[in-house]
């Protein structure tokens, strides 16, 4: 299994978590499965919306984007695409920055930890690490391919 396949699978897990939190936020799910109840403290706080949309909805969009990029990346057409690797690196990098900001808010502003949010932040970090490895491997492979003499 390649890094991009792994990225697609992990992004899908993140997508379901974000979707779960979004469905709670919009009222389709009544209560969150969260041991200490702090998930609701976080989800009901004023920090749970960003630019008029639930933060979880932004998370859903993020995971859809990463999933779609990774899925495209395993197709023959884009298997060697450095541009796609770079796009994944930028998107997942943004995901890490956003998750870090949300985790800071949980720890130092809201004073409550939402376990689903922590899992999502960990997933964002793993996705970024995978994207970084993929980008480096793609760049290295492209360089070595360029240096190799071709038969005429």
């Amino acid at each position, binding site marked *: 299994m390649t890094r991009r396949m792994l990225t697609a699978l992990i992004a899908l*897990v993140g997508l379901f978590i974000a979707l779960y939190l979004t469905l709670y936020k919009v009222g389709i799910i009544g209560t969150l499965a969260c041991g200490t109840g702090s998930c609701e403290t976080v989800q009901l706080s004023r920090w749970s919306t960003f630019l008029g949309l639930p933060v979880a909805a932004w998370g859903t969009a993020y995971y859809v984007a990463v999933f779609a990029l990774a899925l495209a990346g395993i197709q023959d057409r884009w298997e060697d695409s450095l541009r796609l690797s770079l796009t994944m690196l930028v998107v997942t990098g943004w995901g890490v920055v956003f998750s870090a900001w949300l985790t800071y808010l949980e720890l130092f502003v809201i004073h409550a930890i939402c376990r689903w949010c922590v899992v999502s932040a960990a997933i964002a970090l793993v996705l970024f690490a995978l994207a970084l490895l993929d980008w480096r491997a793609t760049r290295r492979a492209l360089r070595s*391919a360029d240096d190799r003499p071709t038969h005429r």
Partner: protein
Amino acid sequence: MGQERMEGGRGGGAGVVKKQSATTGGGGRPGGGGGSASGGGKRWFYIALAILLVAGIASLSYVAARPKQSVSTIDSTIAPVPNQGHVMGSDSATVEVVEFADFECPACGSFATLAEPDVRARLVNTGLIRYRFMDFPLSMHRNTWPAHLAAWCAAEQGKFWEMHDLLFMNQDRWNGEATNRPDRVISNLTKPLGLDMGQFDNCVSTRKYQPQIQANVNEGIRLKVPSTPTFIIGNKRIAAAVPYDEFKRQVDEALAQARPNAATKATTTKGAPTKAANTKAR
């Protein structure tokens, strides 16, 4: 679109043919992004993807299909709630609503700050219902007992509901996530209530009302309270922080059962309260 490059040989013999997409802007590479997947690898990937998709969709469908609130009928052989807890409203109200709540529970806080003001203004102050608060501190909340003790100690000085509101409004300042010294934080928060702080602090530190709180917990266990907040309205047990509209619908049903004409009255009594709340701790 794609431009082919031969490697390791000329023509289509033993050479490996890699497709180089025009969109890459660079040369093709053996191995692809993160290593190329064999047909078998891709098959396993799609199998894993399908399993994840089915599991994820099934899980989400399950939690979304579950009722948002648990409503059950109370066993009629269980005796009515005895006269304990803290009561707001008229003794002559037709229906008594009992809430089992935990001061540190976020859902209870959400109900207390979002729906309860309407409940008081439109249902309690109009004499339609009497509202009884029963303590149900949950063991998962480490700072909830000091809060319940503080509420009872404020009740001793006739300020239960003021303390109730203050605790719920400031839940994020004294809860287990915020502090290891809830007594001190709650004591500071309490100052604007104008209590005799010496008496209050002494009452809290000696856990004077612990037996009463425990009695309420036992009553909740006896009535099979599943979670907080749980409301007992008429013969219904509602285990959820319901919004005002749903709360009133349950009250209307209870009123209709209690006296046939009450439902009509309930639907026409909206707006300014007609009677001040009768607040007392019992």
